């Protein structure tokens, strides 16, 4: 197959930029939860700082996508790939925002002793970050099967989120003084759940990019 230099090289560049953005975002999620575990305010502030860089990536990706569409008139799979990268940039940026939201909750909680040892939140974080990584892997490899598989796993995260909510409710009912921290933890759980939803979006977009059909059943 003949190459289209201008287009192929630029799509390659787009993909690389997006993966760099993805790794920044992954780091933000992991650090925000690490900051929670260790009640490390400084680390939480690092996460907030990184957000500017993530926003810059998004802007840059959007500009590159627009320019490629304007100058190269991509069609078919090329067009789908570029459109999907532009949407993924938005997903990743939102995930970055959620990591920041978590970091802000960590700063809220401060050095106040945690209500209980953290179990479900780190579990949820593991699932969510793994799903994000795998969804990006599916993107790189045009792997529809993997995308379907990862999309399905969203259920697990939703169950954990529910479970965390129920457990923290019991704390709040018993002792109103716990409400402040319990609410922060509930928010954190919800932010993680939202991140999971974005990973699902990424999977759906990978399926569209590869097959040309939208499957939004997840």
């Amino acid at each position, binding site marked *: 197959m*003949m*190459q289209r230099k201008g287009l192929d090289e630029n799509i390659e560049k787009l993909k690389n930029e997006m993966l760099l953005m993805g790794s920044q975002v992954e780091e933000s999620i992991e650090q925000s939860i690490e900051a929670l575990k260790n009640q490390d305010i400084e680390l939480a502030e690092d996460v907030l700082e990184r957000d500017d860089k993530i926003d810059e990536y998004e802007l840059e990706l959007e500009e590159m996508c627009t320019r490629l569409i304007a100058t190269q008139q991509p*069609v*078919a799979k090329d067009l789908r790939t570029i459109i999907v990268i532009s949407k993924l940039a938005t997903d990743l940026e939102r995930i970055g925002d959620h990591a920041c939201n978590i970091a802000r909750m960590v700063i809220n909680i401060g050095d106040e002793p945690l209500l209980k040892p953290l179990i479900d939140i780190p579990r949820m974080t593991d699932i969510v970050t793994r799903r994000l990584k795998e969804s990006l892997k599916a993107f790189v490899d045009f792997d529809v099967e993997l995308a379907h598989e990862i999309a399905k796993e969203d259920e697990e995260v939703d169950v954990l989120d529910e479970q965390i909510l129920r457990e923290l409710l019991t704390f709040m009912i018993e002792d109103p003084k716990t409400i402040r921290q319990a609410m922060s933890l509930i928010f954190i759980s919800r932010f993680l759940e939202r991140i999971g939803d974005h990973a699902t979006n990424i999977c759906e977009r990978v399926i569209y990019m590869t097959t040309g059909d939208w499957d939004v059943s997840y």
Partner: protein
Amino acid sequence: MASNTKIEIKNLDFYYDDFQALKDINMKIKENKITALIGPSGCGKSTFLRVINRMNDLIENTTVDGEVLLDGENLYDPNVDVVQLRKKVGMVFQQPNPFPKSIYDNVAYGPRVHGLQKSNNLDELVENSLKSAALWDEVKDRLKEPAFDLSGGQQQRLCIARALAVKPDVLLMDEPASALDPVATAKIEELMAELVDDYTIVIVTHSMQQAARVSDETGFFLLGELIEYANTGKIFENPDDERTEDYITGRFG
């Protein structure tokens, strides 16, 4: 609304001497739609276009096999009057080719050949044809001037007006905008969008963007075969055949 089939091609083979230029083409061209034919040079798309009004009859040692049905009637039936057929199926070519006559006479030429005289509202027919071709306002005060005084884009619209003057059902366009600048091209494309309400248009184009912009259906030809034929959106967003994808994404080598 489901549209009717205007032209149906069944098991069409076409030969120049021993060379088979079209191989077993089956295609239903929809009424009041724009159908674009795309493919690399020599793929048979122009040959195919000329099959539809039997222009290939003028080339020696050509053979046609199969059926081409216009409104259900086989064009290659021995009883078909080719002159009447070409009245029904007009054609516009790549290079604007007005006759060395006045603007008026270019448009009046076809109707006159078919027996229409001045007394039979020829003026009105010329005016309406020029209006349909979106040229009237530009030429209404200079109808007696030579057609060659017009710009390339105007000449091409004049050729369209000339084709419309005999009231065809089908308009065949063989790269009608490839010799024109972007402004004149845009005018032709706009015109096509208007004409399609009254005509069935089949266009051969080398510009993929043009096919994507103007057409409802797209057929991709390669080495004499119709590889893929579908809704234009489908072809340019998610074609079924890898060869179509390679061609439209510019990776055909």
